[in-house]
């Protein structure tokens, strides 16, 4: 049992809704005073993570996003209901993109769900 997330969003598991999650991510990152570079990187990363998760998502399922707001740090988890989910390909180009754009990226797979967590520390912390 993890602690409650600061912001949660549930949308249909459909690429049409990815833009909503990207925009939400950007809005929250702006609120945390991330730089524009970081914000745009996060926006792209969330889009990539959603694309990876949606590949395995059940068509009638949900796409979940939870956002944890720290001081100068933002963590986003996107997950979807999936049948017989498998580990995302962490050797592929998409994963390379995720890790290049964020401070940390990890995948969580359970038998009926697949999720990716990204976090980014603000460039201003250094």
């Amino acid at each position, binding site marked *: 049992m993890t602690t409650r997330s600061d912001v949660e969003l549930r949308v249909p598991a459909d*690429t049409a809704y990815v833009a909503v999650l990207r*925009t939400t991510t*950007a*809005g929250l990152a*702006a*609120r945390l*005073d*991330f*730089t*524009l*570079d*970081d*914000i*745009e*990187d996060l*926006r*792209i990363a969330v*889009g*990539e993570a959603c*694309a990876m998760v949606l590949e395995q998502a059940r068509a009638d399922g949900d796409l979940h996003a939870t956002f944890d707001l720290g001081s100068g740090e933002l963590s986003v988890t996107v997950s979807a209901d999936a049948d017989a989910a498998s580990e995302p*390909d962490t*050797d*592929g*180009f*998409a994963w*390379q*993109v995720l890790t*290049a754009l964020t401070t940390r990226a990890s995948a969580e797979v359970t038998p009926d769900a697949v999720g990716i967590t990204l976090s980014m520390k603000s*460039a*201003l912390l250094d």
Partner: protein
Amino acid sequence: MDHVDTGVGGLRTTREQSMELFAELTADDVDAARRIECRDALVHLHLPLVEHCARRFRNRGEPFDDLLQVGTIGLLKSIDRFDLDRGVEFSTYATPTIIGEIKRYFRDKGWAIRVPRRLQEMRMMIGTVTSELSQSLGRSPTPREIAERIGVTVDDVMEGIESSNAYATLSLDAGGDGSDEGGPSMLDAIGQDDAALEHVEIRESIKPLLEQLPAREKQILMLRFFRGMTQSQIAAEIGVSQMHVSRLLNRTLEQLRESLQGSA
């Protein structure tokens, strides 16, 4: 066209059939009538791909049949432009063109979001202030810093940035200046930084796609992901705004993703 098997399944895969047809279509010793047959056969063979692409745009207020029709125009264009020697699967090559054609159709129908004048001005102001602040701060500014400089709220700035993302559909095509000088030298240039990525499937699946990207898109992608430069640094290096870099990156990644899915 009795000797052209356009049926699905059967003994030969779509891929093999299309390779053979393309080989014949481009051979020197084939007469015009036969060429037309081959082209027809190729179209029939790949109609399912058009359907697949068009399906993504269902429920957006346009009849599915119309989407199929414009998608097929994209397919025809791809068939006429395809070059076997590039070593790319035809489906990989055709998917972005088909999707592009469908998107253009929506755009021409006025579907793309119209950005109000107020937001267009905000967008331009954000662009100017962003480069000023990047200069004076030596790093990318935060939306708050931009907002304070312009004298508006952070929400106004974010709204302006969102609108500039929506604006992309209108301005991107005009964006590329088609300068080709970065072409092969970019791939040469990444040679030494590439070592850590040896294990990545990029060699097999991405490289042919990268080769097809316009020089500038390829350069931005390389600088961001293989050189680890920030969007601001890239913007300074190639002389466009950071927002433009962001848009180009987004679009290029989306294209790569669609191409990879199309070829899977």
